[in-house]
């Protein structure tokens, strides 16, 4: 059974009287443990697709099923809860909470899940260690480099024990070396812990590491290929 299933997704934005078709009948299935890149030129609908899969936006038509839940029918509050417990997010601009330390940022999402303090402590430390930041735990985002911040964002995304992680252009703000380092970490987590990653990207380094590449153009899937890494 696929972890994510989209059926005939259509998204139309209305800008005054002009209709913009961001997605045109996108149907896609993603299995558990995949390391998938959604690629395409700017305006092809990558981010829109990710937003709809992540429950951040509603499709104009079509259906998104995560596991056995049709998220198109969830209320706003149910969607927030669903995202909290099932989806990890990594954003292009890191988006850490600036006044919290690296560890507190990771713990914060578990706090929202009402996890016990001891568990939050232990898991935050383990995740930061997994992304190579065990010695940066008490630093605030402004005291860390972009790459380090993005690694904290990955640890935060995993803290909630999500079914999958959606990463929107995660390497766009990083230099090549830092980007490769981050991809290594995510690939290791994918391989060793079976965590599902879905990227939207046009970074060749990400595309090279992905085992499945879905290409979008004008809101339509034009190719969907597997590759050996």
């Amino acid at each position, binding site marked *: 059974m696929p972890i994510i299933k989209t059926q005939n997704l259509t998204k139309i934005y209305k800008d005054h009287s002009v209709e913009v078709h961001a997605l045109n009948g996108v149907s896609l299935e993603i299995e558990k443990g995949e390391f998938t890149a959604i690629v395409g030129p700017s305006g092809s609908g990558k981010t829109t697709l990710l*937003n709809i899969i*992540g429950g*951040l*936006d509603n499709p104009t038509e079509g259906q998104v099923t995560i596991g056995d839940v049709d998220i198109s029918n969830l209320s*706003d*509050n149910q969607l*927030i*809860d669903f*995202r*909290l*417990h099932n989806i990890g*997010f990594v*954003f292009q601009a890191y*988006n850490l*909470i*600036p*006044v*919290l330390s690296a560890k*507190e940022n990771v*713990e*914060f*999402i578990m*706090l*929202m*899940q009402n996890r016990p303090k001891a568990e939050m402590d232990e898991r935050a430390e383990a995740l930061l260690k997994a992304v190579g930041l065990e010695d940066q735990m008490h630093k605030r985002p402004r005291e860390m480099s972009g790459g380090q911040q993005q690694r904290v964002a990955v640890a*935060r995304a995993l803290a*909630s024990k999500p079914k999958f992680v959606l990463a929107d252009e995660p390497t766009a703000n990083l230099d090549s070396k830092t980007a490769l380092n981050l991809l290594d970490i995510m690939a290791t987590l994918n391989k060793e812990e079976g965590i599902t990653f879905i990227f939207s990207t046009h970074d060749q380094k990400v595309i090279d590491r992905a085992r499945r590449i879905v290409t979008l153009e004008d809101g339509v899937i034009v190719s969907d290929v597997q590759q050996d890494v």
Partner: protein
Amino acid sequence: MYLKLAWRNIWRNKRRSLITIGSILFAVFFALVMRSFQEGMYEMMIDGMVSVSTGHIQVHREGYWNDRSIDNTLPIDDKIVSKINSIEHVSRACPRIDSYAWISTEELGRGAMIIGLDPEVDVINLEDKLVSGEVMNKDDNVVMIGEGMAEYFELGIGDTLVMLGQGYHGQTAAAVYPIGGILHFGNPKFSNNLVVMPIKAAQQYLSTENRVSSILIELDDIAAYLEVKPKLAELSYQESVDVLDYTEMIPEVLEAIQADRIGGKMFIGILYVIISFGIFGTIMMMTAERRYEYGVLVSIGMHRFKLFMITLRESILIALVGVIMGFLVAFPLIYKMNTDPMPFREDQMDAFQSFGIEPAYYAVIDLGLMAEHMMIIFCIAMLVNLYPLVKIMTLHPVEAMRK
């Protein structure tokens, strides 16, 4: 951690938070100081009237208040005065006899108010008001006059004045009295026209024997007047009596105070509106700056109401700091002006004295009044948070994160 997050968020933009705290501090300081001084002035006005002319409560013969004739006086004895003094909250009962007389010297004449009182028990503090001479004793046959009258008649201690008036039941009241003391009154009405004499001498002058115009009652707590009044009415007097409290005796003063109090409150209201806009501006800026962050937090699974509660915690912390600091800055000044009122400048004194007000900056310490204004300002700071509430509740995470 939510509280920690709120506290740290406050210091993310120190300048903005300090401006907000400063606005609240200023509002609390200004409101507390202004209202405490305002109420202090009212208290002094009432005290001025009560201590010299009315007392907190008065007992008269029935109908006296509307027909203040010497024929309308009340016979009393020492027993009734003792009974009044034994009532809880009564600090003293002061029999007085009031009348009018024509005062004259060899060359000049003027109408005057005559007050006969017991200098040992009366609410009027003759010692404090004495400018020259000595305070009379209750058995003396002397008078004390105001400075204004002494100046007008060019009288000094030991000089005599002639008093001519109407005594009880149409008898002629005429006598010559030496001046034993000259008194200072802030109110020119008293300074120019008042003659104070021992009650026994006044009763003799007016031929009223044991009759008095009124028994002034001073209370240890002005608020107890409603409790004491019925107890006074229950006592048995030789004739029917009326018992009036100070609100019935000086309604025009209380009405003037009420009108002025409304003006003061309106002024404070305008201040509150200005402060509200100031706080609203900073909250609006904060909400706009953090829109992206709110989008991220809602995206990763934070419920909107929880997010609002974090921003509300920030506002509560800021408002609490501002309100407490405002109180801490205002209270020492209010306390100082309560325990040691600062006299006005010489040139300001006359204007206040002419209204019978002690010419000093005096503030009341009224914790209820302070709490009321602190609470209003705190509530304003909370009310302004409806803006981020609306923004967060209607926030679309994708749009919020779109740069």
